[in-house]
């Protein structure tokens, strides 16, 4: 009885939901990768330009801070519209998956930079000095000591960022990029297909649980104390 209902449900909605899941993955992973590529170096720069650090620079540090704070204080849905012309300029379109990547990156990269900053600041200053005293280059110290030692915190920070990112993709439907959040909203809310809404929500919940567990697990693996 129930089984036949489930089969009927997936017959009808399977494709839509599958498609939406793929879109969420696609939007999430592409923007994540680009955001890390931008956010990690920014986080490192934030740390290194602090007073007393090797690239100490009041102005760069101040500017970066302000910029990150400004972007971080704008809700994604507003950022999405605010950036329309910019998005169009960068990728040639402001709709679809392609059109939503730019705002997602602008939204996530500063967040990642901030998270990276706090993860990197946890690294004991003494160990950086120990490596400096051994005659090791600053760029090697950054990569092989600072980033390496911060890996468990970096993974946890990324987990948080991914979850925030998935939350933001729910609004991507507004520019026609689809995704699970969009399905839940369009079918569940606008067309009153409650089953579709529930299934999409369950999928989102499962997705986030899985990501959090993977993050925790990886961080624990890398952490050796």
């Amino acid at each position, binding site marked *: 009885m129930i089984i036949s209902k489930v089969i009927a449900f997936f017959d009808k909605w399977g494709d839509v939901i599958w498609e939406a899941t793929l879109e969420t993955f696609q939007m999430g992973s592409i923007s994540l990768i680009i955001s890390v590529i931008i956010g990690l170096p920014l986080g490192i720069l934030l740390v290194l330009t602090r007073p007393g650090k090797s690239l100490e620079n009041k102005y760069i540090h101040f500017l970066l801070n302000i910029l990150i704070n400004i972007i971080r204080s704008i809700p994604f849905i507003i950022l999405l519209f605010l950036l329309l012309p910019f998005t169009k300029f960068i990728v040639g379109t402001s709709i679809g998956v392609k059109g939503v990547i730019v705002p997602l990156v602008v939204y996530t990269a500063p967040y990642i930079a901030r998270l990276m900053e706090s993860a990197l600041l946890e690294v*004991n200053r003494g160990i950086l000095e120990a490596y400096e005293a051994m005659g090791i280059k600053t760029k090697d110290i950054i990569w092989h000591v600072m980033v390496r030692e911060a890996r468990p915190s970096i993974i946890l920070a990324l987990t948080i960022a991914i979850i925030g990112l998935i939350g933001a993709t729910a609004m991507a439907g507004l520019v026609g990029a689809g995704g699970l959040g969009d399905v839940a909203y369009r079918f569940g809310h606008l067309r009153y297909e409650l089953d579709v809404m529930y299934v999409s929500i369950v999928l989102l919940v499962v997705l986030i649980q899985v990501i959090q567990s993977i993050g925790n697990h990886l961080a624990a693996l890398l952490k050796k104390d």
Partner: protein
Amino acid sequence: MIQLKKISKTFHTKTKKVHALKNVSLEVKKGEIFGVIGYSGAGKSTLIRCVNLLEKPTNGEVYVNGSKLNTMSAEQLRETRKKIGMIFQGFHLLKTATVFDNIAIPLKLTGVPKREIPNRVQKYLAVVGLEDKQDVYPDQLSGGQKQRVAIARALSHEPEVLLSDEATSALDPETTESILDLLAKINREFGITILLITHEMHVIQKICDRVAVMENGEIIEQGNVIDLYSEPKQATTKKFINSLFPSDLPDETLKELQKRGPIITLTFVGSSAGKPALSMASKKFDVHANILSGNIIQLKDKPFGRLIAHLEGEPEETNKVRQFLANEGVQVEEVSFDDN
């Protein structure tokens, strides 16, 4: 091997200037173990960090093995630092790397050929006695073992000089002893010159050849350990040395005793520390010698002792005792309370 010439270091904090080092000069000879002792805030860490330029002196020159570090390019300084090992109170190991990697990663980053690295790691882990801990992470080690890994890491670069910033201050007394023994062995067997700083006298007496006493950013006294122990000149030095010979006799008692004969401090150095000079004297002369407190400590290669004794008898006789002791090679000094 290490020469500091007129080093000054001033820190500018938001509220004030701190003169951490004031015109400090120091020379550490090749092959010796040189200790710097001082109370907290004296400027010891700042001084040792000037040697490898972790701290840039405000004024003055730093020479290591003949080359001047102040004017070096970043590249030259890195090359020079490879030959200056350093260990710290906090060990500073990578938490996320095994003992093996903690030594191997810096070797790789300083350009040691890849196939040579495992041999080096094993060689120096054996020197510090941790061959069996290669695959363990630092947090599974005791404090003493972590410091051994840090020492192996420093040695693996085959340095000429080792700087030690309070390397034993976080360790219990027994572990401290074993780390000091290890440092002495490194100095003996590899001929590595060691400059160490500490606030503990027994670190100085156990392994140092020469010592400098720091106070308020200045070196107030320096010399061979044995000379400094037997004839300290500055008040702070005396305080450090007195701390080794605790005497908790109340002044009242001492003053009472003094009415019946002098109270003297006997300092024994080297062979005289082994002789029963005082008991010989009291047999020979009409004097009762009463030991109030005393201790013999082992310096790096000589015993050193100090007794406080009361000599009861006629002044004529007690003077003879003092003469006798002096002839036996014992330093005798009368304790006076006027300055208390």
